[in-house]
Structure formats: structure tokens, C-alpha cells
């Protein structure tokens, strides 16, 4: 037991900015850590790691992090419903699914994330948000910010500057929230608008809100200042040193098992495969030669894969054998443009080599892919 606490001291003394004596002996009530990484998957993995491995009885933890451009959806949400996936792919904006509930948010370096780790018993979201508001008011007393009963923080009574989500496990819990300092509102509104029509699902919907950056209210504010103010308030309330410990989420010796957690968060099975079952019922308007064809499409998607697929084509537009081959191949495959493209182009190799047929096939497939 003595050996273990010495080991812990050594670990911490490596990462603290100023060397400290034995960590356990100070019996602090809290720990403030900040991530050096801007990778959304690495930072979400740190949350998982702390949730699974840290003993929060002795001390609570505040985790501060920022991400390079990413859209983060809630645990039980549908990415097709929540954001413009085509735009995300074009702009190389990452898509992540977090483990907590709630709605979709856009992250960039102008948005800060705060995670409050406590034991399950001490889980208390309102207290945490009041702490944030207190910190903001201490920094800029003239700011009109308050907490709503939906656990949002509003600026000037109308603009949302913070959204909240939480995860509860067997013995520990965390509550995280965002804070808009200076995020790109233009990108935010364009990526969070879904172009996909005809979706029906029981996934948690997001509640859209007007947002505003704190920077717009007071241009002297920066993300660093906000992080520091919140850390200071946390330190005061937990009676600990105002000291931020910096951690590197890629450090496997510090956080054993973290790279597996990071990898899991990036898998297709997690990001897309965890989407609750949904259906699509829409109409493709395909311009072919001199006319426009209205093609009704109905699909059921479960675990991100096409379970049922019906395409209502004009009679004999495609040979029956080819049509059923297409439907058979799509069934069970991922609801993903890349997978579908490779699938349909590969199938084309075994079709009769007819230019007319090929152009019809390509037209149909390209239109189908726009649904994904």
C-alpha cells in the first residue's frame, strides 16, 4: 500500500508543472486537469478513462478541453438527422459520438469544454453550472448570464452559450458542458442543418437554439481567460490550489488502455452503427435524357446498415435481374456513401456491357448515394 502511494506520487510529479510532495498526503478535495490535445476522440477517451478508472471518493475532478473542428452527437442520436454529413466530409470536419446523452454540438477552438467528475452520489448538474456562472460574473460582472432549468446557460436572457450532457455509471458520474467563447457561428449553423429528407426515427432530437459568442459581448475575452476563471472558481469551492495539471491523452503509461478507448470512439460501428433504428421515405428526382423521373425510395436502417430497401423504378428501366441484384447487395451493407460507391461500381463489372445500361445504373446509384 505504501509502495502504491509512492508510485502515484512519482507519476504525478512527472506531470505537474511544479513538483509536489506526496499527492495523497495533502488529501485534497479536487483535481483540475487540462488536455494538451485538440483531437476530439482523444479527449472523449480521457473522459471514458477517468470515468472507468479513477477513484472519485477522495477527490473530484474538473477536466478542461478544446477541440479542433468537430461535430459531437449524443449517445442516442442520429447523425443523418442532426448534421450535414456531406458538408462535414467536404470540410474534413470530424464526427464523434459521445457516451453521454443530450443533443448535437459543434466544437472548434473557440468553444471550451468542461467536465465535472464526481461519484454517482455527488452528481449535481445545477451546482456545476452555477459555478460556471459565478466564475463568469467574477471575471466580467456586467455579463448577463444565468442558468435555465433545462441546464442551459443563456446570455442576455436569449442566447444559448452553453449546453449540457451527462453520463452516469455504477459508481461514478460526469457532467460536461460547452461554453461558446469565439466559435465560428457560420460553420456552426451550416453543419448543424441536416439536408436529409424523409427520415423517421426515435433518436433523441436536438433542440435548436440561437447562439452567441461571449467574444461578441465582450471582445476582450479569450478562451484561455475563461478556462482560467472557471478553474479558479472550482479551486476556491473545493478548497484546493488553483493549479492546473496538464495531461497528454496519447500517453499510454499515464493512462493505460487509453489508445484502445480512443480507437473505439473512431470506429464506424460506434459513430454510425450505434444509431437507433430509423427509416427513410423519400423521392429521388432524377434528370434522365429529356425527362425527370420521380423514384420513390423506402429504406430501413438498423445499426447503421440497410435492413430493407425498396426502389420504385419505372417498369423495365433497369432489367429485373439487375434491379434485384442491386437491392440484394444493398441489403445488409453499411448506409455509407463510400461503401455503396465501391459496391455498385464493383457490381457493374458483371453487368452486360451496354453504355445505355451503364449510364442508367450510374445515375440511379449516384442519386441513392446522395441520401447517405
Amino acid at each position, binding site marked *: 500500500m505504501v509502495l502504491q502511494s509512492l508510485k502515484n506520487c512519482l507519476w504525478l510529479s512527472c506531470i505537474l508543472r511544479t513538483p509536489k510532495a506526496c499527492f495523497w498526503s495533502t488529501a485534497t478535495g479536487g483535481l483540475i486537469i487540462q488536455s494538451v490535445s485538440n483531437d476530439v476522440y482523444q479527449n472523449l477517451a480521457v473522459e471514458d478513462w477517468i470515468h472507468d478508472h479513477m*477513484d472519485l471518493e477522495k477527490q473530484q475532478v474538473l477536466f478542461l478541453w478544446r477541440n479542433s473542428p468537430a461535430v459531437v452527437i449524443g449517445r442516442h442520436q442520429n447523425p443523418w438527422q442532426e448534421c450535414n454529413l456531406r458538408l462535414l466530409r467536404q470540410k474534413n470536419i470530424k464526427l464523434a459520438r459521445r457516451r453521454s446523452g443530450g443533443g448535437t454540438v459543434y466544437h472548434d477552438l473557440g468553444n471550451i469544454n468542461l467536465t465535472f467528475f464526481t461519484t454517482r452520489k455527488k452528481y449535481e448538474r445545477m451546482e456545476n453550472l452555477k459555478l460556471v456562472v459565478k466564475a463568469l460574473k467574477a471575471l466580467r460582472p456586467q455579463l448577463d448570464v444565468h442558468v435555465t432549468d433545462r441546464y442551459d446557460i443563456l446570455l442576455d436572457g436569449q442566447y444559448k452559450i452553453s449546453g449540457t450532457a451527462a*453520463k452516469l455509471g455504477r*459508481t461514478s458520474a460526469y457532467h460536461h458542458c460547452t461554453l461558446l467563447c469565439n466559435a465560428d457561428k457560420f460553420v456552426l449553423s451550416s453543419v448543424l442543418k441536416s439536408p436529409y429528407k424523409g427520415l423517421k426515427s426515435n433518436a433523441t432530437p436536438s433542440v435548436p437554439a440561437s447562439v452567441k459568442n461571449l467574444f461578441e459581448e465582450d471582445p476582450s475575452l479569450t478562451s484561455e481567460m475563461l478556462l482560467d476563471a472557471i478553474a479558479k472558481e472550482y479551486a476556491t469551492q473545493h478548497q484546493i490550489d488553483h493549479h492546473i495539471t496538464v495531461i497528454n491523452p496519447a500517453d499510454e503509461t499515464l493512462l493505460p488502455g487509453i489508445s484502445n478507448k480512443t480507437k473505439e470512439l473512431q470506429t464506424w460501428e460506434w459513430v454510425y452503427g450505434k444509431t437507433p433504428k430509423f427509416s427513410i421515405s423519400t423521392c429521388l428526382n432524377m434528370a434522365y435524357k429529356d425527362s425527370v423521373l420521380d423514384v420513390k425510395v423506402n429504406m430501413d436502417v438498423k445499426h447503421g446498415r440497410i435492413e430493407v430497401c425498396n426502389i420504385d423504378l419505372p417498369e423495365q428501366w433497369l432489367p429485373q435481374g439487375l434491379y434485384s441484384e442491386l437491392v440484394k447487395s444493398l441489403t445488409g451493407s453499411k448506409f455509407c456513401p463510400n461503401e455503396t460507391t*465501391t459496391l455498385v461500381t464493383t457490381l457493374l463489372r458483371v453487368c452486360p456491357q451496354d453504355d445505355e445500361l451503364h449510364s442508367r445504373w450510374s445515375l440511379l446509384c449516384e442519386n441513392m448515394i446522395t441520401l447517405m
Partner: protein
Amino acid sequence: CIHRVRSCSSIRFIKSKYVCVFDKSALKFSHQQRLFRTSAVSCGQIVQFKLSDIGEGITEVTVKEWYIKEGDSVSQFDSICEVQSDKASVTITSRYDGVIRKLHYSIDDIAFVGKPLVDIEIDASKGVAPAEDVVETPPMSHEEHTHQEIKGHKTLATPAVRRLAMENNIKLSEVVGTGKDNRILKEDILNYLAKQTGAILPPSPKAEIVPPLRKTETVPAAPKDKARKIPVPVSRPIAFSGKDKTEPVTGFQKAMVKTMSAALKIPHFGYCDEIDLTQLVQLREELKPLAELRGVKLSFMPFFIKAASLGLLQYPILNASLDENCQNVTYKASHNIGVAMDTEQGLIVPNVKNVQVCSVFDIAVELSRLQSLGSAGQLGTSDLTGGTFTLSNIGTIGGTYAKPVILPPEVAIGALGKIQVLPRFNGKGEVFKAQIMNVSWSADHRIIDGATMARFSNLWKSYLENPASMLLDLK
């Protein structure tokens, strides 16, 4: 009496997987075991596991995902389901070991705090109060902190695991736990046993993880088995816990199955050769900086592709297509040369269009575009269709000679091995260092004969062995 009942119950839970391990005890208690078995089905007590308090005064939640189904066995602390309430996602874990007998809700139903969530059939030996265990452990508290004290150490392990350890005379303090919170799992006991008997078990991926900050204060000792004397018979076989995994063939794989089945209907013949790339290697070194100035990385592929196109001009049958009934051969005008790419999904073959009118640099630019789209998973349908001839540079991964499969509706394909530095004799009979690459061609023997393939290959080879000769024929 209690001891006997416990052994029987351990057989009940574990016998399906680890029968061999319990042979000894099974023999001893066969009489009781038989009695137990006949009444096993009905003697388990059904306990209604209620949804516990979420906090913040919440009374109802929505069930979002089940991790188990009716009939599954669960251990204490296993995840049962995921529920959501007002932006909070909660993982509900089992309080008991047992078998799930009933799920009270479906996905998207509203579940109520304090009302039953699942029915679990637990072991009858646990007595009327299911939360209590007959063995020397304190009753489970409402917060589910179940640190079982064993000889002064706090070790997390379910009652079933503890029984398994006890049956095999294993000290839990000597076993490394690899479960959540350093919990000792059944697999950990088996691994420990295997180390004793020298049996080979499949590697456990989490075995080495020992996080510095842990919930328990135990120091899990690595099983130092040299000094330890456990009376374990050497011949006892350990149950292999690996399982076969069957997955349906879907999506892209299904399409590949169809394509490859069609491909193998084509009568293939092969032709292989080795190419001396010494001069080309030197040429590329000279041209690389020029290409970089223009913002493109120059590999060997653009040269291979252009040389192939020059060859196809002389032997257009290799750029043709045979119709389904083998009635007509269509000589394709465009040289759309496909380049096989290895991606996460598997093999994809985008093609460079109209190589016959492209310069080596044009090809390099287009290849670069296709490669970055390919790795991002963003290739379009036009990039992936219309190919007439394919080159597969398997040498980047390794290998020398290969037997490539023709991709219909094409009639020929070439596989390029890796470039090796090998000793060769020159015209004067001297040994020199040569950069050698092997090529393996496959062609459709219905319309292409060996001589045509050989002549094409020789022409292609001559362009690459003496790159200056390409200048003569470039259009």
C-alpha cells in the same frame, strides 16, 4: 451442507463452459448433482431487479439500448441496459449473478424508478434475501459497493469467480484482475491455472493493463508461480475459451464474391518476367525534385502506366473486352488504366482515364488525386468505372511473382513485385548491382495468345529498361 450446495451451484453456472475443470468435484457429488439437476430449472429464485434512483429527483427514464436479452447469463456488475433522462445517459448494471428471465420494457419505452426493470433468476442457495451470500461476505449495500474481504485484501470478484478460485485452491490476492476496477474474472482464474500447468491459452488483450490510480487499494501480484506449490495434476486439460465468430457477408464483400466468381470463369494464362530498373531508378531520382517543385510526389507507377499504354498501342487486343456470349470483341479506344489500391474496406481499383493522351507528369497528378480520395473514402463512381486494363503494384507490400486475377470486363492484368537489389551479369560478363522487379501478367486465353502477351511484355520491359526509348514513341 452449505459447502455441498455451493459446489453444485458452481457446477450449474459454469459447467457449460468448464466441465473438465470440475470433473473431480462432479464425480464426488454426482449423487447430489443428479438431484440438483432435475430440480435446477425450477429451483432458481426469480428476483425483480428494480430501476434504482437516478438522482436529481428523476422518476422516469427512456430505455435506449439493451445489452442483454432474455435467457442470457449475467454476472454482478455486468451492464444490462442504457437509459436516458433529460440529457443524461445512464448505464444500469446488474446487482446479481443469474439468468435474465424477463425484460419489462422495449426500446423507447418509459421506465419508472422503483419499478421492475428485469427479472433475474438467481441461484437458490443464496436464500430468501437475494442480496446476501452464504459465504463469508457482508450483505450487499444499496450503493452496490461490494468489496469482498479475503485475508485482509480487498479484491473485487463475483461469488461465482470466488467459488472457482476456492475449488482450485487459488488465492485471489495472487491473481491479476483484468476486469473493470481490477475485478477478477473467470478468464483470469483460467489464465492463472494455465500458467501453473503450462497449457497454452489464447492471449488476453487486457492482461497487462495495471492503471496507477485504482478504486481498490490492492496490489495485484503477478502470479509468481515458481515458488508456489499448488496441487494441480499436470494432465488436467484447461478449457479453451476462444470462440468461432461468424459474420454475414455483406455489402462490398458480397459484390467482390460476385465479381471474383465471374473472373474465375475466364480461362487465365500467366506470363512472368524480370525487369532491370537500374536506369529508371536513376531517372526518377533526377526527376523527383522537379516534380516536387510542381507539388507532386513522383513514384514509379506513372512510368509503368505510360509504358503500358505505349505497349497497348501496338497490341490493342489487350485493351479489349469480350462480350458475354463470346461473340464479339470490342477494342476500347481509351486506355483507362486501373491501379489497384488497398484500403480499409479491401481492394478498390480506380482508373486513370485516357492515358494515351497523358504525359507521365499528368498521370502522376491524377494518381495523387485518386490516392488521397481513396484514403479518405471519397472516390466517386466515375473514378471507379470504365477501366480497360489494370496494374497492381503488390510490391509496395511485398512479394515477387504473383498470379493476378483479371477484373471483368477487362482481358488482362499485371502484378508488379517489389524492387530488389540483386547481382546480375552485364554484357562483359561482369557482376553488377541491378535493381530488379518482377512482373506477372495474366490474360484471357479465349482471345489472347501467349505470343501476344510475351511481345507486349517485352515491349513494356524495353521501355522501362531503357527509358530514353520511350521518348521515340511518345505521342
